[in-house]
């Protein structure tokens, strides 16, 4: 499946995402992360990966917010100023600011994770000198969850054929009874599969430190290279500005 990000060299959205993460954390609060979040969600929707990115962001940001509020309510700095178990406005604002920053970072990186196929990304990184082992590590990490899910489906199907009931209507006892039949083959097959993968790579002349080429090298037009340079420049400016502000605040304090 193609999306709008496929038009770009994967390094360009990656650079943009990293820049947005830095802006979300280093820029003025709370407007910087809020703006980054809006931009990232807008790009995700325009790229056709909106639902996945929104779900991923919510999955991280909302529990973080709830947890921080709960922690502050359970262990307030001082029970003299406000009572236990009742969150105050200040703690809610702090939790909101942290969750917003985290959410903005997840959304920005989520656009790359959901919108750029891992193999395309690693091919682009390999063209910039990334060693073969690192490229493989990136792919294996990104594919680990879908791989495990695929194997789990196969195991589930095989055991359902033997009468193992799982899913709706299965009680806790039934689920516990089914656990060894599902977990055993899954663990064994995942281990076996990783061994087989190593064998397959070996059989195809894969050498971890060697340079690899590509069947279809990813285009990196001059225009995009300039865009990335501009992004890195802007990023450097933001970091320098923040460092300067930090130094100035120390000077004033002393």
């Amino acid at each position: 499946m193609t999306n709008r990000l496929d038009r770009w060299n994967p390094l360009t959205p990656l650079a943009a995402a990293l820049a947005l993460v830095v802006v979300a954390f280093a820029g003025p609060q709370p407007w910087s992360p809020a703006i980054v979040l809006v931009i990232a969600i807008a790009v995700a929707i325009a790229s056709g990966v909106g639902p996945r990115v929104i779900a991923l962001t919510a999955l991280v940001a909302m529990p973080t917010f709830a947890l921080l509020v709960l922690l502050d309510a359970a262990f307030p700095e001082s029970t003299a100023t406000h009572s236990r178990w009742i969150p105050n406005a200040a703690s809610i604002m702090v939790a909101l600011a942290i969750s917003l920053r985290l959410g903005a970072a997840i959304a920005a990186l989520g656009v790359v994770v959901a919108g750029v196929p891992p193999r395309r990304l690693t091919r682009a990184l390999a063209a910039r000198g990334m060693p073969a082992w690192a490229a493989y590590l990136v792919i294996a990490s990104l594919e680990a969850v879908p791989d495990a899910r695929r194997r789990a489906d196969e195991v589930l199907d095989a055991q359902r054929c033997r009468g193992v009931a799982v899913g709706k209507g299965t009680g806790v006892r039934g689920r516990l009874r089914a656990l060894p039949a599902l977990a055993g083959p899954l663990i064994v097959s995942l281990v076996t599969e990783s061994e087989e993968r190593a064998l397959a790579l070996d059989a195809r002349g894969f050498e971890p430190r060697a340079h690899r080429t590509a069947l279809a090298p990813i285009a990196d037009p001059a225009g995009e290279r300039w865009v990335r340079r501009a992004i890195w420049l802007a990023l450097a400016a933001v970091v320098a500005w923040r460092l300067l502000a930090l130094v100035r605040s120390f000077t004033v304090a002393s």
Partner: protein
Amino acid sequence: MNDRTLVLSLRLERVAYRERVALRDIALDIARGEIVGIAGHVGAGKSTLALAAAGLLGTSLPAAIRGSIEHPCGGRPPAAFVFANPSTQLTELGETVEEEVAVGPENQALESHEIRARVDAALELADAMALALRIPRELSGGELQRVSLASALALDAPLLVLDEPTAQLDPEAALRFVGAVRSLRERGVGVLVVEQNLEILAALADRVLLLADGALLASGAPAEVLGRVPPWDARVGGRRTGHEADRARDAQRPPHAASRAPLVRIAGLTAGYGTRDVLRDLSLDIRNGEAVAWIGRNGAGKSTLARTIMGLVPARAGNIGVGTHDLTSLPAHERARYVGLVFQDPRSQLFSRTVIEEATFGPRTLGAPREAALTQAREALRAVGLDGREKDHPGDLAPQLQRRLAIASSLASRPEFLILDEPTAGQDAEGRGFIGAALALQRSRGAAAVITHDLRFAQDECDHNVTITDGHVSHIGRISIGDDPPAR
């Protein structure tokens, strides 16, 4: 082309996995353009020899090797390898088939136009060009096997090692495969092929090595070597032969199956994945006491039919009945009372600590009392030749025996209708005999279907063949094939 320039010079005194000796005293030279076949029973050491010849033993696979393995023509890697299980071939570095095939040339750091030329030539030779843009994980077993061959060919190595390369190919594809491998001879590629199908081996190889229990039993021209043992019953040494299993099977085979009422009734079945219909208005009856072979090209819909009957793929239209039960709306685990399905890969199923526990799991899950489950399990294990192995750990069994254990554990549940998906892949003659015996046991109390490309097994063990083409039944009848191997 056979210029006696060696591509492999192998001298092995001993190869062992931990304490178990897998090979001893083997010497093998392969010249450019020469095709050497390896035959032998399950556990004879064929795959170990193939892996050693490809230089994969001792690196990716831990083994203690005493001896030397030389590849005088060099290469990166010096040998290309096609694995018995085609999914083992996948590196996952490629998203599409052509990207997967390109992994080897990419590792060789070729220019992109050279990689493209290699990939196209390999896909063409392996008859897999039509699959170029498909996703490897979505292919059928046979399609994946063609992709495996293409992936190996793309390496352009001086030596090609093939481990059971036709196990999942339909007969037409197997013939094209034989042609493709023969054409490598002209290019000066040396080939080492492990094959249980002795007809293919006889048609393909210049000479054959016959292994038994890790040692070389005979070596020479195919007709000479394969003639030293009963031609299609090549278990060399062993405690029980396929012939004994044959006799047990014949005693159990019920007469006049054709006159009985249909046990399995499939009417107007349509099913598929995503927006694609794989089965289209398929109707089929199977009578009580019958064993039928479902045959057809790779990707024709045979496995999807099995999965739909079992309830793993939802039916979009049509009805499925077994005995007096309408299965159409039942979930898979409830259908397991009436239908059993054994997949190609037994690893998705085996989890118990002993063979007997594994075989009793199905009947116990379906509510059988412990004693009854044990009786049923022992009967099923005896049928597949695993009696005496009850206390073994399933993980310690050879893959072919694991497959037979998976069949036994389904058989032990006593379903009315049992479906086996490619049960004979990788099995030697003895194993095929035991699977035939398991089929006979099933026929004595219901019906069975076998998804297979093994037409000889279909002819010997099944009442008739159902040919499935593009998701519907295109022909029902018997296939008769000759007793002699095809002429070379």
